[in-house]
């Protein structure tokens, strides 16, 4: 299986049809394990049972950035190799990424309410995710605003890459703007400060959600390819009969 084969939309449809059921099954299994483990995880001595929100909040927050990364790679594919499948990948990822980002925000604010006493705090991390969410919505609006998908793909690719370059700057500025935030815990230098009892379910859930994204993304890409096929057939239909 070479990359060229994968790059052909018809081949892609065939291959993805074979892979999808396995991916879906793996997602379900991992999600079940992850949910069971997070249910049986002990309470945190400080946060009590609310720590359980972390098991869905963190995977969604991770995905909110991961999906943008996937879209950035796809955008490179659009701009450098001008590959139509890259357009499809970028377009299909945006609504899914926006949904995960929305979940990260929602669970974050539900987690914050018991901790801070308010649903929303202009905390640096929440705020950064909110800006990311706005950028997702803007990107989706861009895809919707332009009727011709290949023209929209160019613009969206540029915006995605600029966004990817801008995200660290935004994150830095927001950090600077608001120094009242909790220290990052999972990726802290010198190892994790999380107890193993939390870390294992968290990692399982993160992998499960990533698999969920891959499954959904693949299915959405298939839909997008079919949508374009419908579009080109309709254009042919419009021109088929002359008189």
């Amino acid at each position: 299986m070479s990359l060229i084969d994968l790059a052909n939309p018809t081949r892609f449809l065939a291959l993805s049809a074979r892979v999808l059921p396995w991916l879906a099954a793996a997602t379900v299994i991992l999600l079940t394990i992850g949910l069971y483990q997070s249910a049986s995880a002990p309470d945190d001595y400080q946060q009590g049972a609310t720590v359980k929100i972390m098991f869905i909040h963190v995977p969604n927050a991770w995905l909110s950035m991961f999906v943008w990364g996937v879209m950035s790679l796809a955008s490179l594919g659009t701009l450098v190799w001008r590959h139509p499948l890259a357009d499809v990948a970028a377009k299909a990822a945006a609504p899914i990424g926006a949904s995960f980002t929305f979940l990260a925000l929602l669970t974050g604010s539900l987690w914050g309410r018991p901790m801070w006493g308010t649903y929303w705090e202009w905390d640096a991390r929440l705020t950064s995710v909110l800006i990311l969410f706005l950028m997702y919505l803007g990107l989706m609006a861009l895809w919707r605003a332009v009727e011709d998908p290949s023209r929209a793909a160019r613009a969206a690719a540029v915006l995605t890459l600029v966004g990817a370059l801008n995200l660290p700057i935004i994150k830095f500025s927001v950090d600077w703007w608001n120094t009242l935030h909790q220290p990052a815990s999972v990726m802290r230098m010198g190892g994790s400060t999380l107890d193993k009892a939390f870390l294992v379910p968290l990692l399982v859930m993160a992998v499960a959600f990533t698999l969920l994204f891959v499954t959904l993304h693949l299915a959405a890409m298939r839909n997008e390819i079919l949508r374009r096929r419908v579009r080109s057939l309709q254009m042919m239909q419009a021109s088929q009969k002359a008189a």
Partner: protein
Amino acid sequence: MMSLGPYASFIVTSYAAAAIVVVMLIGWVVIDYRNQTARLRELDRSGVTRRSGRSATDTP
């Protein structure tokens, strides 16, 4: 039933919201797939074919 402490409603809401959003995503993907294949079949029936001469719906 495990005990979720004083903030049970927040925890349940988080999980429920995640479930709803995921179900909505799955629904979107499935319904979109049905719509596109239905339109492809309709185009196929009205005799529009792709340049290569293959049927529009043949997705092996």
